[in-house]
Structure formats: C-alpha cells, structure tokens
C-alpha cells in the first residue's frame, strides 16, 4: 500500500548488513540540526495542535450552516474574508470543517497505528524469539496478509464491518500488521547473530533474558522510524477509504477524504472544496514523512556521510 511497506521490505532485505543503531545522543544531535527534520516536526506539531484545539480555532461548529439559505448547487462561494476557505455545498464553513477534520485524521492515524503496531510487533516477536514452527506459522500468515494489496485488504475488512470509524481503524491496522511483524522479526534475527548476543550466550545468559533484555530494546529504533512513516500512510489510507465511501457512518463528521469525494461534482464550479481538504492531507502526511525519513537517516549508518 505504501512507501512504508516498500521501505520495510527493503529494510528486511538488507537485514544482516545493517543493524539499527540505538536512538542515541548522536542521532538526536543530528536531527536537531537537520532543517528537513525540523520542518517535519513543525508540520506535525501544527497538525496535532490544530486537532487538539479545533474548537478554539474553528469559528463555527463543523455542522453549523452560516451560509444556509444562500447556497445553491451552482453558487458555492469560495474563500472570503469572512470564510477563509469559503463555504461548502451545504453552506458550512469550510475552514472550520478542515480544522475539525484534523481531529478525525489524527484519531484514525494514531489508533490504527497503535492497533496495527501492537499486533504486528507481537507476531514479529513471537516469530523472532521462538523461531521454528511458531516462526513458520506466523510468517505464512504474514505472507497471506501481504498477498492482498493493502487498500483491497482494507476495503474487504471495511465491507464486512460496515461503514464506521472503528472499521476504518481496524482496516488500516490490518495493513500495518504484517509490516511490523516482518520488521521486528528481521531485526531480531539479525541481532541474534550480533556479537553481543553471542557473547551473552557464551556467558550463559538465559535466552529469554537475552531476547527481552537486549535483542528487543535494540530493535526499537527501526520500529520508531517505521511507526512515524506509518502514521503518514495511515492518514492517507484513512482519507482513501473515506474517499471510497467507507468512512464514518455519519456524513456530518468532517473527514478530509470524504470532503474531497463529496465535492467531486463541484470540481469545476467550486475547486476550493477539493483543494483545502486535499492540501490538509498533504500537510499532515508530509510532516510524518519528513520526520520519519530523517529519523531513519539519522539512525542508519548507511546515510552517515
């Protein structure tokens, strides 16, 4: 589905060459000086703040209709001093709706990330820690999940569960489960051969404490990178599902993807209705992409030069 998936794939193909370094002071220093990372961070902060303080920022409630009685299908006013982003097809303030849309977007992104990541990491950990049959079973399951293109998997899940916010979250989480499972397993397998593990083993440290005490913590930083990137794709995926009509059942809830879809018919006469929610998606996704990329580079010795 996403760049994240591809990167995870190439990541795991490179396993063995590289081990993710720890999120050390070095990396942090590099990040702080990196203008791209800072831009990413600022965009994320902006997005999160808008989402949190939506009621303060938005001049109108998302379902209020300040333009009621003036709107006709062919007269949808664009941006003005009074309505910064113009009015939508029902006379609602587009700016307020885009602002409230950030909440939905953040909520879906974070919840689906947490769901997908937890399950994925659990599966990856089981496969990586126990190996053998557990590994085979888990990885075959992952293969099956990866065999269905991401969006199609999400659509299939959403079709069973019916249109609701929860089903969108679960659908997106499902896309991310195999990515995290593969990532963590790959990391753990690679670390198992690492010198310090071999050393610990030769010292007679028990396998479980090696896994929990050393291998797992050392696999955390690629997971953080992947998580950041996944947030970006989760936001886009949520918009895509909602664009396809599989979002929340309440059409009054402002979702960027749905706003974009429902204004298809006004594309020629009121392009602002497509422009603002579309741009909002880009900004939110871009923040996480930039930070995630730079985080990856900061942590990956390959990029240090």
């Amino acid at each position: 589905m996403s760049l994240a998936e591809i990167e995870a794939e190439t990541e795991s193909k490179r396993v063995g060459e590289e081990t993710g370094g720890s999120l050390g002071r070095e990396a942090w220093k590099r990040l702080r000086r990196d203008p791209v990372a800072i831009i990413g961070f600022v965009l994320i902060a902006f997005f999160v703040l808008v989402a949190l303080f939506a009621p303060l920022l938005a001049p109108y409630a998302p379902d209020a209709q300040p333009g009621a009685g003036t709107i006709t299908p062919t007269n949808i006013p664009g941006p003005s001093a009074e309505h910064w982003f113009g009015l939508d097809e029902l006379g609602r303030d587009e700016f307020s709706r885009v602002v409230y849309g950030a909440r939905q977007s953040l909520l879906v992104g974070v919840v689906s990330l947490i769901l997908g990541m937890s399950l994925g990491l659990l599966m990856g950990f089981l496969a990586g820690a126990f190996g053998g049959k557990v590994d085979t079973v888990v990885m075959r399951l992952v293969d099956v999940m990866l065999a269905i293109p991401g969006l199609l998997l999400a659509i299939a899940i959403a079709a069973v569960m019916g249109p609701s916010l929860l089903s969108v979250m679960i659908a997106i989480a499902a896309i991310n489960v195999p990515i995290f499972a593969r990532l963590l397993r790959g990391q753990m397998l690679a670390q198992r051969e690492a010198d310090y593990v071999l050393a610990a083993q030769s010292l007679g440290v028990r396998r479980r404490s090696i896994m929990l005490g050393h291998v797992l913590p050392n696999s955390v930083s690629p997971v953080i990178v992947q998580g950041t990137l996944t947030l970006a794709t989760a936001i886009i995926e949520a918009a895509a599902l909602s664009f396809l009509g599989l979002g929340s059942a309440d059409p009054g809830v402002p979702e960027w993807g749905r706003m974009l879809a429902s204004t298809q018919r006004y594309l020629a006469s009121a392009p602002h209705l497509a422009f603002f929610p579309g741009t909002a998606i880009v900004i939110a996704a871009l923040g996480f992409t930039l930070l995630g990329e730079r985080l990856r580079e900061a942590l990956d010795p390959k990029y240090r030069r």
Partner: protein
Amino acid sequence: MRHHSLSRRLLALSAGTVMVAGLAACGGDDGDEGEAGEGGGGTLVFGGSADPVILDGAYVSDGESLRAIRQIFETLVTTEEGGTEIEGLLAQDWEASDDGLEWTFNLQEDVTFHDGEPFDAEAVCFNFDRWYNFEGVLQSPAVSYYWSTVMGGFAQNEDPNLGESLYAGCEAPDEGTAVITLTRPSSAFLTAMSLPSFSIASPAALEEGGADEVSGTGDAPSFEGTFGYENPAGTGPFQLESWDRGSRLTLSRYDDYWGEPAQLDTLVFSVIADGPARRQALEAGDIDGYDLVDPADVDALEEAGFQILRRPAFNVGYVGFNQALPPMDNPQIRQAIAHAINRENLLQTNYPEGAAVATQFMPPDLFGYADDVTEYEYDPERAQQLIAESGVTDLTLDFWYPTDVSRPYMPNPQANWELMRTDLEAVGFTITPQTAPWNPQYLDQVDGGNAQMYLLGWTGDFGDPDNFIGTFFQQQQPQWGFDNPEIFDVLNRAEAETDEEARVELYQEANRLIMDYLPGLPYVHTEPAIALREGVEGLVPDPVTNERFVGVSID
C-alpha cells in the same frame, strides 16, 4: 407479494403540450424533421451511467438497458413523445370488445425485423406466448419484473403466491390482426403495452439465439443465449452494430425501417460511470449528450452553451416513516418532523431550478392531484410544541440514507440527509445516522420494515395516480408499517372506478386523507435533465423517459 395494480382508465397528462412548448424554448429552432434530415447522418454519442444488462426487454427493468432497447425494439402501442397519452406504434389501431376481454390490434404493414423476418400477427403471438410460458428462474421478479407486475402470473406459476395470469391467449386470424384475450377486463393492459418490456422481437432470432436459455450453475442466474447480447432483432429504427461490453454499445440505422428512418448513421451509448466525468466528457466533446445531469452542473452547462432538456416532473422524493417502530406511530411526532424540516431551503441548496416542494405523494400534473391537502409549512416552534404535546420523551430517531446512488428525485441523498438532520436536531430530536449502499442493502432494510425513518422516492412508469399513491398506500406494507382501512378503501374504490370524474375525485380524496394522516413527508418533485451539445436536435424529453433517437439529428 407486493401490490402492483394498474390504472383502469388513463387520462392524458396536460404536461404533454406544455412540454412541446418548453422544448422549443430550450432547443432553439427545432425545425421540421424532414428539413433537419437533409444534413443527416453522423454519429451521436450518448453517455450512460452503466452498461445495459441485456438487450431483451423481457428481462430488464433498469434505465440504461431500457434506453437502448427502446431504440432497437418497438411495442404495439407507445406513449406520445413528451407525454403519457397512448398512441399506436406497431399497431395502427386497436379495439376492445364490450366485455373488455378481447383486444384486437390492427398491425402496421410491411414491417420487417432486423434479421429480415417479416413482422406479423404470428410474431406478436409468439412473443406473448414466450413471456407467458417463462419457467423457473425466468419467473423471478428480478428477471421478468414488468410481466409479473402487469400480468400477475404465468402459464405454470412456480411461486404459489403468483395469481392467475391476466393473459389468456393470443390469436392471429390473419397476418395483420392480432387478438389478445384477457382473463378479466383491464384498461391498464393497453397502457402497459407501451412499456419496452413488451417489445416484439423476431421469433426466428429469439429461437436461434436461445433467448430463454438460462442456467443456474453459477452463483446467480445467467443468460446463456446470444439473442440479447449479439442478435437482438427488433423492428426499431436502429439495430445492433457492436457491443464492447462495459464500454460502448454501437447501434446503426436500420435502413428498412417501416417508418421515417433515423437520421443518424450511428448511435453510440458510451458508459461513463462517474457523474462528474460524464459532464467533463460532454465539455471535452467526447460525448454529445448524457442523462441525469447533476443539479450542480445545470447552470454552468447552460452558460457554456449546452442545451438542457428538462423532463416534466413525474416523480416524488419523500421521507418515509415506519409506524411499526415507535415513536413514528405518534401523529404529533410525524407532524413535528414535517414542520421541522425546511424544505424550501433544502430544495434551494441541493436541487436545480425546476424542483418544486411537494405537498403530496404525486406530481401536480397528474389527475387526482388535490390542491387543498393539509400542508405542513416550516415552523420549528410549532414542531417543538407538537413534540411537547405528544408526550414522547425518547426523541432519538434512526434516520436512514443510501450511499452510492443518485436518483432523479434525490441527486445527493447524503446532502439531503445532512440538512434534514440539522433541522430535526434544532427542534430537539436526536438523529442516529444509519446508512447502507442503495442496492441491495438499503432497499432491503427499507422494504423489510427495519428503517424507522428513511429517504426514498419514486419515478412514475405510467400516467396514473395508481402508479404513485396506489403503489404506496393501497395496502399494508412493511416499509410504512401502518394499517389504515380508510385510506386503503378509498384507493381500492378509485382503482375499480370506471367513471373518469368520479375517479379523479376519489384520488383527490385519497390525497387529502393521506396528507392528514401523514405516513411520510413528500418534499420534492424534480425535472430530471438531459444535457446535449449545441447542434443536436430533435430529442424530446419524456416524463416516463421514453426518449426516441429516431428523429434526432446532429449538425
């Protein structure tokens, strides 16, 4: 069984004449058809929203299939262009016996099917016997909807719920005369014969093409024959040239057509599923016209020099209340809802010009329309008062809207729903959104009586009130969930009445009763529009979408 009675007597729509004048204004100088033909020829591409299902009128009831079938096939009688009055087509004239059981049709002469076979009384009887003898899956209302609706049954009914067929038999005393016998008198019979589902096809082509071969080995009934896909031989002005499934259907002029031949050389129905894409295709010149123009596009298209043809309003959009699910059984709650919804604002915001606020469940141009029904004007205070009087405390309502659909009476259901929700919550209701894709879940939920309050509507098939309020309210139905013998009785009497004036009065009485009772809130009648590029002439918008391309020319 769903009740589908038909009219006993048909009155002409006054809209017919109004329409012709309206068209002249829209389409510019229409000119004589003969004159326009001199520059004739060419290819007209018309954008449709979907591929036809099959080119066999007996098996379809969807608009895209019927549009194509209307050009390829002809019926015994038809509705006048732009109106609903019955006139001859393959039958020059007809006569009913005094007891109303025997219908004698005098057929057009020198008519041949596209496969070269002659059209005669034998062919007419062949077609009727074919439909009458449908078996198995073919009897499913999903397949032969209009036959079971109009005729009620088959030679051997698979479903015991089907009644005795209205059809008794067909005889051909001579080539030019077909006599159809009915089991009981019905003046609705003639009206129904104008439906494209009763198109006369070439018996030879039907047999060779295996038109009745249907298999059930798949997961759904599947038509095995080639008739409806490759060789649909009718008598119409156009014949099938090629069908690139899912993309375009190409018809070519039938040169041996018995009437005035078509002016176009080729008529293409091109599939563009996406509404906005159809408009853009018209603007880009990819297509010459398309149907179901979005309200948002009407003004812009007109300004850009495209023609907008509006069909006379022959539909109604309504909010349905299911009284089986409280508190909808409370009349004050229903009235409160009616007073709470600002229909004027709704129409202005979501509908194009030409949409009118509905006061009752049928369009104003139809006979039986009552000017003096109880009206429920927008009055939120009155609504709050009614709620208080009702004594109902739980004001949570499940309100359903369909997705993935655009109907002539509700181009954007979700937008209608949102505006109504705002209005209803303003007077104190709490609205729970419920939604499902239009087909099949939404219709299942509504028809099955599971939807407390829902958006729905109706487009008429015939020019008769029975096709509107008779369909809705003549008997108990799960979607409405009420039992009101008074209304049922008036509608039954109206259907049985043979005196025209008495019938009009009965329907007016029914409309008054219905709007007092308020089983639902009708809110809109629209004029569904067709868009054409400049230079396309001769298409007459029709209330029952019976548009014929035979007289259409392009520059």
